[in-house]
């Protein structure tokens, strides 16, 4: 029987075929790394690792003294109580425990959403654990340079509430290795790619975060349970929920198109009492139990649930404050500006630039401005509500296309068609943008159903049909007449448009219109 169930929680939406390759290459090295992990002890600190101490905040602070005793006690207990329940795990999913000396004078106080104070300490001796595949991929020496481990402590006053060993494995460009060493759990660079593993202090692997462009695209939790029915009391109480999160998108280097990192995340926890379920419980001095020596009975599930671990670089309180501030602005123009600033500072500068271009060229009606404000609001809400920022997602792009079928002036519509393609090309957004050569029919939607149909057609023109009729308009000579159908609550809605093909693939679109006058 396998005591742990490794819950794979990374899946992709079918549309992300492009991602598969990248995902595969990313996870090939890591997916089973836990089971293949090898412990490599470094006899002495390498110069690179010794430099780690310099990258974190050095503050002469009594913080170190209050944690030092706790850490030594934990170490003693782990060593002295081999039959402690927290050691009763399948050895294949637990690393060999080794003492890791902490540099108590070098730490960073993290800004993560938690009621606790969170500190990240460097380890003095590296004792780096390098997954076998990671070593295979980069070679031992480079793998070491690409690895880093720290101690994360959640504290309330002088009490340690919980703690983790964090292991960072950087698999990005070689040039980024130096910067990688500066990574902290609350500050993951946007170029960061790799895996962040969290272990309990006694080396039980709790969770892994797969990171791309500094954002979590997948997590894997290592959870206790039973894959068979030998211990029904363990599996019966395991509860899982799955959440799909649309992830960030980025252009595919050297190619057209965009790759998106959508994520299915499954959170599971075992609601059995920890002792029965076999969750790692901490009954030592301090430990997981607030207040000191509390045994398993007083532990809250959350204390043992890896989902209670904040994501790397997750949103802090300041972020929430900014959002509240923005949402408190009632003046539409001020609100739009604040929302644009918000987006600009979070990687959405191209989108902001586009919106500003649309507005600054002047000549817009009040209705146009109102629709632009709606667009900005929509993108802002889309972005701020999620942990993963997907500023360049097709979803946001569709929001701009939505604008086109709104009741806007021809001036604004033409302007959108003029500016949008540049924006799309720059971002590698894999959506065909109408060229805006002109319009031969009604483009303004009469109702929400029509607006949705237009949005769907513009977003998915490749799902339309070629009609067996020729276009004689000189603006689209050699183009093909096409039709897109959407079945709504009020019946069918047809959108006609024109398309230009290359080798059977639709390459350009234009003149989207409703076929009913």
């Amino acid at each position, binding site marked *: 029987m396998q005591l742990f169930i490794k819950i794979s929680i990374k899946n992709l939406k079918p549309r992300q075929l492009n991602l598969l390759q990248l995902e595969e290459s990313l996870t090939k090295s890591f997916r089973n790394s836990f089971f293949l992990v090898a412990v490599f002890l470094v006899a002495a600190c390498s110069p690179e690792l010794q430099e780690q101490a310099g990258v974190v905040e050095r503050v002469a602070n009594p913080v170190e003294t209050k944690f030092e005793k706790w850490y030594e006690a934990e170490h003693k207990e782990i060593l002295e109580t081999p039959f402690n329940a927290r050691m009763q795990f399948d050895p294949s999913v637990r690393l060999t425990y080794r003492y890791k000396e902490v540099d108590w004078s070098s730490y960073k106080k993290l800004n993560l959403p938690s009621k606790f104070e969170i500190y990240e300490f460097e380890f003095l001796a590296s004792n780096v654990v390098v997954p076998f595949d990671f070593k295979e991929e980069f070679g031992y020496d480079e793998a070491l340079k690409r690895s880093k481990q720290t101690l994360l402590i959640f504290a309330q006053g002088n009490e340690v509430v919980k703690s983790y060993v964090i292991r960072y494995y950087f698999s990005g460009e070689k040039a980024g290795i130096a910067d990688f060493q500066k990574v902290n759990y609350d500050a993951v660079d946007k170029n960061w790619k790799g895996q962040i593993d969290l272990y309990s202090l006694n080396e039980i692997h709790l969770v892994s975060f797969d990171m791309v462009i500094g954002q979590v695209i997948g997590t894997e939790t290592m959870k206790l349970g039973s894959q068979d029915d030998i211990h029904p009391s363990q599996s019966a109480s395991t509860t899982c929920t799955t959440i799909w999160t649309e992830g960030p998108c980025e252009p595919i280097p050297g190619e057209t198109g965009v790759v998106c990192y959508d994520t299915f995340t499954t959170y599971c926890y075992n609601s059995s009492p920890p002792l029965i379920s076999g969750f790692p419980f901490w009954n030592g001095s301090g430990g997981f139990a607030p207040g000191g020596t509390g045994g398993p009975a007083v532990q809250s599930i959350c204390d043992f649930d890896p989902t209670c671990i904040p994501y790397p670089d997750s949103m802090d309180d300041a972020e929430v404050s900014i959002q509240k501030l923005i949402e408190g602005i009632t003046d539409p123009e001020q609100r739009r500006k604040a929302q644009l600033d918000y987006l600009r500072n979070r990687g959405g500068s191209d989108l902001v630039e586009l919106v500003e271009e649309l507005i600054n060229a002047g000549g817009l009606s009040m209705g146009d401005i109102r629709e632009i404000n709606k667009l900005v609001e929509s993108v802002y809400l889309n972005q701020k509500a999620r942990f993963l920022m997907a500023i360049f997602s097709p979803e946001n792009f569709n929001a701009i296309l939505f604008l086109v079928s709104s009741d806007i002036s021809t001036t604004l519509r033409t302007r959108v068609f003029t500016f949008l393609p540049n924006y799309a090309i720059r971002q590698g957004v894999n959506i065909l943008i109408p060229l805006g050569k002109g319009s031969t029919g009604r483009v303004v939607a009469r109702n929400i159903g029509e607006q949705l149909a237009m949005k769907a057609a513009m977003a998915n023109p*490749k*799902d339309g*049909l070629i*009609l067996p*009729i*020729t276009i004689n308009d000189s603006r689209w000579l050699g183009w093909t007449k096409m039709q897109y159908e959407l079945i709504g609550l009020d019946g*069918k809605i047809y959108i006609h448009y024109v398309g230009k093909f290359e080798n059977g693939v639709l390459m350009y679109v234009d003149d989207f219109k409703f076929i009913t006058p």
Partner: protein
Amino acid sequence: MIVKCIGNTGQFLRPFEYSMITNPEVFGRFGASAGSRFGVQIGVTYRVMGIFIAQEYQGYLVDDGGYIQTAPCQLFEILDNTIPSDWKFSVLDLKNPHYPLLQAVFGYEELVSDPLAIEKLIGDMEETACRIYFRKKLAYEQEEME
């Protein structure tokens, strides 16, 4: 002529392609990608109001939900193959703007005599052309009932 729809997607038509298309985004000879959806519904019976020969396939002229559609014959099975006695046939000449996409039309008088009839019905949804279509359809239905 009555037909029953048995498929309505480009994917359904893939086996009828002359050569295998692996890229779902590629539009095949029926003018459809794998993701394309035709405006007909599976299981529904349709009265065929015309048969046309396009550049690379043959299709029916039918209507669904008040919208006149062209759809490849392969999307249907024939339930009644009786052709109305007044149908005519016409081959589009080189001067016709829709040649070679459209090559020949078989159907009621107005459909065949007007070289732009198909465009008016499915492209422009021109009121007069549509009215003639539905009037004709009604007449065929009444004829059949009698």
